């Protein structure tokens, strides 16, 4: 089914081309008249007070870490969510999406367990005040 992804490559090419084309046009037809002041960064009409290459506050990194954790975890939900009905059935599904045999809380429980860990993590970071931003 890799052919399904072929259009995406085309889209990729088109998207990239579009962006680059825009920028090249600008380069070609825009006027240019540099001066020393223009070359300096804008800071509300004053000279830059300090260079912006600094170590940022740790909370920004924290967000990135938390994102990694939660986003990857969330990714696990996707297949589960899609397959949930199947997981919840002992037998197969009928056309109306109902189980033909009986329901089973297996899928549910699996994910609840997973979720519980995730929630625990959330509670942990919450309690550790890692979600405080002021």
């Amino acid at each position, binding site marked *: 089914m890799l052919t399904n992804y072929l259009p995406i490559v085309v889209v990729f090419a088109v998207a990239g081309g579009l962006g680059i084309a825009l920028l090249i046009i600008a380069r070609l037809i825009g006027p240019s008249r540099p001066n020393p002041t223009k070359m300096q960064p804008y800071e509300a009409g004053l000279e830059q007070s300090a260079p912006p290459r600094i170590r940022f506050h740790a909370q920004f990194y924290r967000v990135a870490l938390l994102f990694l954790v939660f986003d990857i975890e969330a990714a696990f939900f*996707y297949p589960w969510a899609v397959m949930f009905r199947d997981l919840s059935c002992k037998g197969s599904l009928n056309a109306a999406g*109902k189980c033909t045999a009986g329901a089973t809380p297996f899928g549910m429980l699996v994910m609840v367990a997973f979720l519980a860990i995730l929630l625990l993590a959330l509670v942990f970071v919450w309690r550790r005040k890692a979600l405080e931003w002021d």
Partner: protein
Amino acid sequence: MGEIVIWALVKIAILFGFALNLSAVLTWMERRQSAMMQDRMGPVKANISGVTLWGLLHPLADALKLATKEDFVPPKAHKAIFVLAPLFAIAPVVMVFAVIPFAPPVCLKQLTAIAPRCVAPEHMQIARIDIGLLYVFAIASISVYGAALAGWASYNNYSLLGGLRASAQMLSYEITMGMALIGTFLVFGTLEPGELVLRQSTIAKWGIVQQPLGFILFFFAAIAETKRAPFDLPEGESEIVGYFVEYSGARFMTFFLGEFLEIVFVGCMVTTIFLGGWQAPGLAADGLHIFGLDLQLPHIAVVGLGLVTFTIKVFIVCFLQLAIRWSLPRMRYDQLMRLGWKGMLPASIINVIITAAVVLWMSSPVKG
């Protein structure tokens, strides 16, 4: 192989024509709509020998002007990243359109037939892949680089702050956005957008009815992803001027365009996932059945109606986004993060659990 590419190009032409035009129209709409909300006229004066087209020429003027504005790269900036950042801002948004189904599947050989049964319908989405929505999330999260890198590379304190805010905000809401949809997947059991639309055949089956909380969470998280008010912190014009302070001309336009493409994309996503996509009430494969009306329509007309429906829905969602953008004040960074992490994320998790429980209960065999 060749045929696929050609088809892809055709669909790209249609969809991009749609998306790009819509985003251009959106800039006009944003200005006219806000004007109407604010008791004023809005842009109307641009004209070509007297023809104003209700101000539709203004976006054209903007684009042309921005493209011909001085192209400026600050010498202290990190040049490569500075140049690449706008690409990062726009390319992912363009790419994610690939999976949006914008019209009913077409039976190429039975265009004039009524309710044809095709063997292999041509799906009106550029790429029909099973993990369509996962693809969306994967690609969409790249766009955070646009703002973050732009902010960092500009060598400017304001833009640095903007970039930091952008990355933190977009990462945070990415999670909520992803989690908010899980309920929908639970209900519909598919990740493929085209399939998702097909399963929302009646209003009662629309995502918004099935997943109201999911809809609200997704909608607002998506607005946050577009960096628009009340979540426009990265721009935060009155505080830090914006992550693109140092960008001029076409590069700035690229950000601008990306932002509007995102709005359109949010419109498409919400339409596809929650509003039944191109499905319209009463629109069936063989024609229109609504309010006692029984209209037999040829296949091509049905497809056309589907496309129109889709467009209208997207417009409505965009309209709503714009209305929100003009009415609400901006949030503060910590409040935004708190809302994301402590409000919407738990809410979405709870939504997942409840939905799962309900689905579980619903899918149990009918007693008796």
